[in-house]
């Protein structure tokens, strides 16, 4: 039960040059169960990229925390790094460089 509702405050940042790929820097309260795919969905939602047309089609993003690629859930990251969800996590996103078939794994 607690697992399902547990959330953490994150701040999404990006170094993408393309201005249209930047989301507001205000904090977001998200489930700690999110992985790359869930976070990617959130970023696309914030960018208004949840359509079918070329310019609104979702993009695949990768996520980095402390310059390291996130390959697990946010919760796993917190636990492995001795952190709790009381902290504000700065999460960087970049356009995915990996092939889609590989991305599905995490």
């Amino acid at each position, binding site marked *: 039960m607690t697992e399902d*509702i*547990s*959330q953490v*405050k994150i*701040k999404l940042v990006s170094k993408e040059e393309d201005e249209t790929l930047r989301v*507001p*820097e*205000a*904090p*977001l*309260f*998200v*489930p700690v169960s*999110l992985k790359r795919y869930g976070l990617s*969905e*959130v970023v696309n*939602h*914030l960018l208004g990229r949840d359509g079918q047309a070329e310019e609104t089609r979702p993009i695949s993003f990768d996520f980095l925390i402390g310059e390291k690629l996130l390959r697990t859930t946010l919760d796993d990251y917190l636990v492995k790094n001795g952190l*709790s*969800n*009381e*902290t*504000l996590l700065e999460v960087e996103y970049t356009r995915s460089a990996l092939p889609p078939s590989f991305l599905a794994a995490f």
Partner: protein
Amino acid sequence: YDVVQDLDTQSPPRDFEEARELWRVSDQATQELASGLCEQLRLILEPTKSTKLKGDYKTGKRLNMKRIIPYIASDFRKDKIWLRRTKPSKREYQVMLAIDDSKSMYESGSVELAFNAVALVCKALNQLESGDLSVVRFGEDVKVVHSFDKPFNGHDSGPKIFQWFDFQQTRTDVRQLCESSLNIFEEHKVNTDLWQLQIIISDGVCEDHETLKKLVRKAREERIMLVFVIIDTLNSEESIIDMSQVKYNLDPETNSMNLEVKKYLETFPFDFYVVVRNINELPEMLSLILRQYFSEVAST
């Protein structure tokens, strides 16, 4: 009932000298504000002047006309024929101050404001001189750090309360706080006319708004007022006002989860809350929200 732990079995995380110095600083910072808040609270909590005339007395302000005929018929023996203005009864109340001791308070730089708010509210209520005060801390656990049964005095009680806060708890269990508080209030309810008020001081970041909403409603049914003071960060980029929340809703048609992003405060479970960035704003904000609360209570 084990979540509310016994103070005697644990030692506080902060030593007395350090806590005393912290109290001294907060005490000084809130000196004038406390008297101001005290006056405002006096006006709000003061019993309304009774204007009703009630009988039956042997002397009084005005004759009770209904008693005249029986008076004469009884050969002037039934002489309780006067009405009097009834005295307004003193409004009794209990205030529980609940302080968020979780680590997010420390990380968002809310500690100083939280300490000042505790000093401010404790002193203002103490100056009012009628009503009991209790202080609890919450985070992973809920702990009574000053109980209703004890008198409050600044020199000793203040530092002793501060000793229990180090803002290192790794959870913010507001649900447990609400459940425990309802029980504590229940235990201390001496009569049904008692007003029970809880002032929660926190950065406002908590999970499970749906469940909390139910608890807030339950408290209201039991005439327990819950007022939430959100301490907002000074860093405007991280303000709770701009914060959003990611939610997933089940779409009954496609049976899939739909992503929704809403402003965090839109689903904030407490009806009566204020967002404070500066201790100087607190007296005004607190009086405002309490007045609003009482006027709503009076109209329902």
